[in-house]
Each structure stands twice: as structure tokens, then as C-alpha cells.
């Protein structure tokens, strides 16, 4: 089935004329708008609400719960507030660069949605270099951040921008190296191809295929945290040191662009990991209609991505941030060697087990379950121990 979202929309809108040039162009436009404004931008906005609520519960408090049911419209209120703010451009700042920088960052956020595999048919363009395209485009953020830091004419912003550039460029390498194991196992760079090589049972996901892939998935996850400037790697926007890092001088919507891009990039990074290692949209084939199958696959993909995004938020609420030299040391001394070991190890593994090894898959899967079980036990331990909630002057 080599359908794509574009052809689906073309057929739906234009029926017989679907293959004419103008029809194809129109359906591409409609498809892009659909993906962006139905999934990408709402996600980047709603995730702020989710993050604030999750973060608040981790910190024993409630989070926004006034605007809309359970505070659901908080992101809308924030967006409107930011749009209504005065757009301040510092006098000495380099105005053209200052204005253009957020757009570059947002570009890096928008372009990867072209290859996002929502289901076996819902993909804008199934490029046969899909994963390479994604990795390349997400590196555009560096240019935007550097521009922002420099053009603000503010030494603290400059420090933030340079830190961020160093960080993103450095962590591209472990991220790229960690893509290789999955690519080696399938021999293709296309997103749909990588997903079709896995199947819906968890032990067939690539993360459990061999220990090198397991390690590569973890390295990919941590590197993607670093690329998105998320804690523990949020030095560029270290709130307690640099106020807001490279975005200090920005106000109103330009400021929001940076952070919309950051939250949206969380989805993209999670999507990369889900595609490569967690089986993508693979869902049990219930033999129903085509629409049902697509829907199921879409939900499967979304759930997996959202779980990873949740883990990313959870880590943000837990860990302190690393210093710049420690971050470099982690990247170059730990992740890069381990990434190389993964790559070479997977290559040797594929040479020995071209069809994969069932035993290893099941063993790794059992290991994964064991880790989750130990984690659950530890959570229960902490919940049991410090259980007493003391309220000396209760009003609740």
C-alpha cells in the first residue's frame, strides 16, 4: 500500500481529476495545512497544559485549573496574552536577524512533519531518506538559536546561544549514531520501511532485538533531550542563571515561537524513537475496515509518542541540570564511544543473525518488564514510607 495522505486527500476532494497537476498541488497544500494545524500546532500548545499539570503533581501542587475545565484552555489564554503584548526590539539589537531567528527555529519544527508516519497510509510524503531528512532538518535549530543569541546584543543571551549551539551540534553525533542500529537491521532509511520491519507485538520491536539496540534507544532518547534543550540539558535557558538564555530579550509572540518549537520538537524526537525502536504505528490487525485499521494505527502511534513525551516531562521535573563542561564530557566521552559500540555491535549481530534471534528478543523483553516491575516496587516503597499528610490547620 503505497498510499499517502496526499493521494487520499486528492481522491477525496477531486475524485476523477486527482492526478492532474493542479489537483495534486491543491491536495498537497490541504494535507500540509491539515497536519500542521490539526496536529502539530495544537499539540505544541496543549502539551504546555499537560506539562504544567504533570509538573505540578510531581511537586505536590495542582497546576493551572481555572481557565476552562481543569485549566485546559490555559494555553489559549497564554497565547492570547502573548499576542497582545508589546513587541519589544532592543535598540541596539540587530533587528533583521532578531526578527528572523524565531522563524528559523519554527521552520526546524515544522518541516519534519512532512515525513511523520501517523499510520500506514497517513503520511504526507514517504521519502526513502525519511529518517535522514528528519535528523538534518532538526539541526536547523542551531542557526536560529545562535542568531537569537547574537542579535539580542546581550552578553547573557550570547552565552546562552553559544551554549545551545555547542550542545545541539555535539549531540547530533550520538543521535545520528543511534539511528544506525535500526537502519542496519532493516537496510532502509524510509520511515514506513523501518516501521514495517517491526510488528505490533512488543518483543518484535527493535528496542528488544538485541542489547545494542536497547542501549542505542536509550542514548537516542537522552540525546534528543539534549537537542531540544530539555532538562537535564537546559543550560541555554537555565532559568536560574540566565533568566531565559538566548530568548531573554524576546517578548510576546516571538518568545512563544521559540518555546512552541521546543515543545513541538519533543513530539518529533519522540516520533523518531517510536519509529525506529518502538514499532511505530504497528497495531494488531483486527481485520476491520480500512478506516478502522488506520484509526487503530494512528492511536497506537499517538499513544507511544505521548508516553515518551510524558517521560520527557517527568525527567524535567526530576533532574537538575548539568554544567556545560559536564555536558560535553557526557557527549564525547560516554555517548559517542557507546554509540560506536552500538553501531558496530549491531552490524556484527546482523551478520550473525540476519533474521533476528527470537531468544534474545524474548530475553530482552523480559528484562524490560523486570525493570518496570522493580521501578513499580520502588514507587510503592516511597509512597508507603512517607505517607502521612500533615495538615495542622485544615481547610480541606
Amino acid at each position, binding site marked *: 500500500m503505497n498510499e499517502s495522505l496526499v493521494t487520499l486527500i486528492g481522491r477525496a476532494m477531486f475524485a476523477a481529476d486527482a492526478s492532474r497537476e493542479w489537483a495534486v498541488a491543491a491536495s498537497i497544500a490541504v494535507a500540509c495545512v491539515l497536519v500542521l494545524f490539526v496536529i502539530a500546532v495544537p499539540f505544541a500548545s496543549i502539551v504546555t497544559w499537560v506539562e504544567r499539570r504533570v509538573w505540578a503533581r510531581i511537586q505536590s501542587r495542582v497546576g493551572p485549573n481555572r481557565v476552562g475545565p481543569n485549566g485546559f484552555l490555559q494555553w489559549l489564554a497564554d497565547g492570547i496574552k502573548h499576542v497582545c503584548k508589546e513587541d519589544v526590539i532592543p535598540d541596539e539589537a540587530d533587528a533583521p536577524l532578531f526578527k528572523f531567528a524565531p522563524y528559523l527555529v519554527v521552520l526546524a519544527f515544522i518541516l519534519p512533519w512532512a515525513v511523520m508516519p501517523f499510520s500506514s497510509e497517513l503520511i504526507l510524503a514517504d521519502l526513502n531518506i525519511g529518517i535522514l531528512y528528519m535528523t538534518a532538518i532538526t539541526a536547523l535549530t542551531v542557526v536560529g538559536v545562535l542568531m537569537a543569541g547574537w542579535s539580542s546584543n546581550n552578553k547573557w543571551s550570547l552565552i546562552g546561544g553559544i551554549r545551545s549551539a555547542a550542545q545541539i551540534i555535539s549531540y547530533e553525533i550520538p543521535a545520528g549514531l543511534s539511528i544506525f542500529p535500526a537502519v542496519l537491521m532493516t537496510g532502509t532509511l524510509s520511515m514506513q520501511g523501518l516501521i514495517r520491519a517491526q510488528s505490533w507485538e512488543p518483543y518484535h520491536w527493535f528496542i528488544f532485538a538485541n542489547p545494542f539496540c536497547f542501549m542505542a534507544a536509550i542514548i537516542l532518547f537522552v540525546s534528543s533531550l539534549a537537542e531540544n534543550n530539555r532538562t537535564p540539558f537546559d543550560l541555554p535557558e537555565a532559568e536560574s542563571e540566565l533568566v531565559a538564555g538566548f530568548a531573554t530579550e524576546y517578548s510576546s509572540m516571538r518568545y512563544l515561537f521559540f518555546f512552541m518549537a521546543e515543545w513541538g520538537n519533543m513530539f518529533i524526537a519522540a516520533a523518531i524513537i517510536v519509529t525506529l525502536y518502538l514499532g511505530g504505528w504497528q497495531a494488531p490487525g483486527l481485520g476491520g475496515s480500512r478506516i478502522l485499521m488506520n484509526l487503530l494505527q494512528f492511536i497506537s502511534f499517538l499513544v507511544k509518542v505521548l508516553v515518551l513525551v510524558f517521560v520527557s516531562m517527568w525527567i524535567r521535573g526530576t533532574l537538575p541540570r548539568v554544567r556545560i563542561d559536564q555536558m560535553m564530557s557526557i557527549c564525547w566521552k560516554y555517548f559517542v564511544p557507546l554509540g560506536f559500540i552500538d553501531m558496530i555491535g549491531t552490524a556484527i549481530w546482523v551478520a550473525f543473525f540476519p533474521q533476528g534471534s527470537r531468544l534474545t528478543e524474548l530475553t530482552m523483553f523480559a528484562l524490560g518488564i523486570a525493570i518496570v516491575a522493580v521501578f513499580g516496587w520502588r514507587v510503592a516503597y516511597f*509512597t508507603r514510607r512517607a505517607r502521612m*499528610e500533615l495538615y495542622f490547620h485544615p481547610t480541606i
Partner: protein
Amino acid sequence: MGAAAYFQHIKEALATIFDGMAVTASHLIRKPYTIQYPDRIPVRVQDTLPFRYRGILDVDMEICTGCLACDRACPIDCIAMAIEKNAQTREIIISQFDIDIAKCMYCGLCSEPCPTGAIHHTTEFEGADYSLESLIRRFIAEPVVAYKPKKGPEPDPDVARLLERGMTYVDEWAQPGTDKPSAAKPAAPPKPPTAPRTPAVARAPVKPVAAATTKAPAPENRDAAENAAAAASAEGAAAPPAGEHDAPKGEPDAPKETSVKSDDELNQGTRASERKNSTSS
């Protein structure tokens, strides 16, 4: 860095991050600690605050004796009082009692020496308003006669109620005493606070001509002519603020020296009214 240290670092990082994530996950499933003031709580916060809470000051003018002890004690001069002594009727007329709660630092030094508990801290803390002038609380509309504590129980029931509340407030403060060996007595069992306060029973009657032992500093807004008389009366009224307030009732005295106290004894009320005061003299 040797190979052993390298893998040690990795192991430590994974273990501690695992533990940290477990702690935060346990918080995700616990109840939050937030009290959603002011609109999603069943009772007013002011009603849950303890009795000793030092909120915005309030003055019950019905029981104010005009002794100026609060004015003198305030370290930031936020209380402005004007009193004068009526020469014929020997009454004290209070014509001004202003407290600037914007200046007040809620230290409690004014309510400590008040003999009747007229000036006291409430549990009110919501004082925000739109103008600075509204933060000057004026408690006197027209000049009033100061309260004179009666020899017997207070006849007027409204004033008696205020007086009871005031004396309960004053009772919370520590009573001065000394740590002589004979003072070591076991704590008396807590008395239920039902008996109305009759401070007049144990108090010396307030006379306007008590011997002035220390000179009173002249407050502002006072006529120079009434200085001496007012000072004497002020001193007289201020003389027994630290006196005992609990009437000596028939308490069984159990003079046993115990070094190990039972939980009940240790957990009893330790208010001034519930302790035998060794310095009742």
C-alpha cells in the same frame, strides 16, 4: 579515568536517576498539598487560624481603659491616642484612637500590656484596599468614656462578653515568674474554660490617684493641662497588667515531685490560667 571508574559512573548515574524518577512518580500518585484559597475551600481560612494568630489589630472600645500602654509599647508609633481627664467626674475621655495598619508590623507588643485585652490581634489578614487612607483604622467616632473595670462581675452582658474574650486573649501571654525550687509543682489538670472571667475579683481596684512610680512619656495630641492627672491615672491603670488573672479556686494541691511525666500531663494546657503561679503574691 580508568575503566572501572568509567563504568562506575555509568552505573551510579543510572541507579540514582532511577531512584529519583521513582520518588517523583510516587508524588504523581499522591494528593497535592495545595489549599485552593480563596474560593475552593469549605471554610474561611480566617476561621482555621490559631487563636494566637497576629493578624490585623482590632480594638474593643467598650473595654478600653485608656491607659496608653499600647501606645507606649508600639515600636513603630502606629497608634495615635488622645485622652483627657475630666476634672469633675474623674473620668477618662478618649477622643482619638487611630491605628495605622499600613505601618503596623504585627509584632504583638501592644496587645501584651493591655489590661483588658481591648486591643488584640484578630485572624483577619485580608487588608488590601484601594487607598492608603483606608488603612488608618479609626476606632473613635465621638469621644467616649474609658472603661473602668468593676469591682464585682461586669453587669452589662455585652461588655462582659467582650471582657471575657479579652481576658482569654490576655491569658495566652506568659506570666512572669521566677524559677525558684519551690515553684516546681506538677501541672494542674486542664480546666474547661467555661467559668466566665471575673478579673475584678483578683485585681486591685483601679484608682486614678495611684502613686506614679515611673513617669509616663507624654503622648501626642494631649492637652498640657491634663498631663499630670492623666499620667497618674494611666499609671494606675497600667499597674496591675501583669497581675494574676485566675482567681484562686479550690484546686487540690498534689505536691509530688515527678521527674517522669505521663503523656497526659505533658500534653496538658499550659496556659497561665491553668498553671499554679508560684509568684502569686
